[in-house]
């Protein structure tokens, strides 16, 4: 059995709105191992994004333990957590979230600015991952000069450029046509198979979920 990368035990999460507690996640227990590709499914509002955000270290649990690659997220302070994210997590968003004023190259370079790599090394890394996603010839295009599928590939390049252990993707194909969605899924599949990335993907699309090695369902904050 490979190592446990994500270890969630009896996790609760609720939000507070006007001093009313809104429970979102209810006693979640989940293990994800190195190299797995997990698809999280479930109806709208069931808490998928919330769970993903917790795993990615941009939100904090209300109760329970959450360990990702040996680090207890709750133990880290604000800036230690930021550093941890930059080293361990690659983000893929539904709407790509590229910075519109930066070129594809510059967008992908961003996470590397948080490392100690030299400019020349950064260039090498960026070119490499842009080649992996098949956009080596679009490096100097701005996001608005790219199609949605191409934008998402740039975003994936940005997510893998620091070589993180974990990729989190929140409905990565949610805004794409069938053909582009297929390309993105093939790419994620390849990152999982060939590059051994652990992937947690939230999706509504059963065809996307088929790509995953494990499927889990959330409903009203409960995992099944």
């Amino acid at each position: 059995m490979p190592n446990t990368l994500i270890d969630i035990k009896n996790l609760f999460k609720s939000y507070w709105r006007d001093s009313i507690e809104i429970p979102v996640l209810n006693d979640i227990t989940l293990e994800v191992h190195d190299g797995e590709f997990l698809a999280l499914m479930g109806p709208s509002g069931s808490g998928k994004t919330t769970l993903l955000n917790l795993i990615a270290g941009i939100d904090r649990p209300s109760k329970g333990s959450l360990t990702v690659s040996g680090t207890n997220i709750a133990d880290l302070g604000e800036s230690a957590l930021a550093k941890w994210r930059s080293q361990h997590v690659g983000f893929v968003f539904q709407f790509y979230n590229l910075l519109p004023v930066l070129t594809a190259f510059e967008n992908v370079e961003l996470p590397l600015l948080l490392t100690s790599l030299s400019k020349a090394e950064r260039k090498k890394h960026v070119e490499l991952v842009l080649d992996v996603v098949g956009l080596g010839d679009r490096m100097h295009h701005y996001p608005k000069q790219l199609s949605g599928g191409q934008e998402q590939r740039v975003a994936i390049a940005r997510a893998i450029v620091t070589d993180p252990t974990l990729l989190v993707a929140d409905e990565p194909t949610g805004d794409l046509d069938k053909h582009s969605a297929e390309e993105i899924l093939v790419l994620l599949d390849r990152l999982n198979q060939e590059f051994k990335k652990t992937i947690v993907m939230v999706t509504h699309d059963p065809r996307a979920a088929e790509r995953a090695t494990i499927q889990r369902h959330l409903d009203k904050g409960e995992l099944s």
Partner: protein
Amino acid sequence: MKIPLKYTLRNFKSRRLTTAITVLGIALVVFVFAAVLMMAHGIQKTLVATGSQDNVIIARKSANGEISSIIVRSDYNTILTLPHIAKSSEGKPLISGETVVIINLPKRSGGLSNVCVRGVALEAFTLRPQVKIIEGRMFTAGAREIIVGSSIAKNFEGAGIGKTVEFGGNTWTIVGRFDGGGSAFDSEMWGDNDQLQDAFNRRGGYSTVTFKLDQPDAFNAFKAAFDREPRLQQFEPKPEQTFFAEQSENMTLFIRILGIFITIVFSFGSTIGAMITMYAAVANRTVEVGTLRALGFRRRSILSAFLSESLVIAFIGGVFGLLLASVLQFFSISMLNFQSFSELEFSFALSPSIIGWSMFFSLTMGLLGGFLPAVRAARLNIVNALRSA
């Protein structure tokens, strides 16, 4: 740690109009700020240029200007006995007892203004080598003739050569025009001292006495001798440059305080303008901030990115305002120096310290305007920021 500056700069391009308006608002305030300081500095420069380092001027202690000072003949003769007064090659002391009166003349721009008329001895031209006749001729001793400074010729009606001026119950003919080398003398009329004393019934005495030191650094030695002379206790000698510089002190202080007060009031407007622009920038880029934070950029990187954005706007505004203000250097204006009660022409003058203060002022506006929006951006909750897509 570091969000690249090009991110900041390119965001300007994506919202050119708001950026341009904000820059313009700051530029205008900096322009007014710099212009006021340049005005005060110009007046100061003109008056400093009026005095020479090695001339000494003696006036009544209580006098706050030349016109309120009187030195009678006997005191003048006592002054002549003091050491360190330079002599000409013929052995004559280089000293000029001068009578200063103020007359009214019509300005070309309309209205009357005060003009300083100075009765001088011929030595006055040796004492002030910067004063040179550039048109016509010197006045003749013993005649009701005057010569006018170049600013007077320019700014006053009927001050040309050959014209006559009425004052002191007499008619005076303008026979020459002189250049005072950018000093306050440019804004004066000079005539024969005896004639002027005659016309104004001032036979008894001079207004001030100016002489050249025999050595440039002899002032303290002279002052020591002067202070030991009991008959001269109601008078005070000063280096000429200091004396004239003091004539601008109150005036320039007043201009500076008024100007700074006005620009600070204006600056609220442009600071709030910068703040609105920056709040809009933060609101428009909330998702970007959330994304950057998710990638691992820290709060303080976000803070400095937005702060530097407003500082860059302020910097450009400051440079722009200063460029506009520097054009003023080509203009000179003539106005009443209420300290000497007479007309003074001067140019707006820029100095390194004015540039420094103007930039400081504009960057302060940028800092104040950008601070709260930058704090808001830095404090955004990552999850909420990402949700606002």
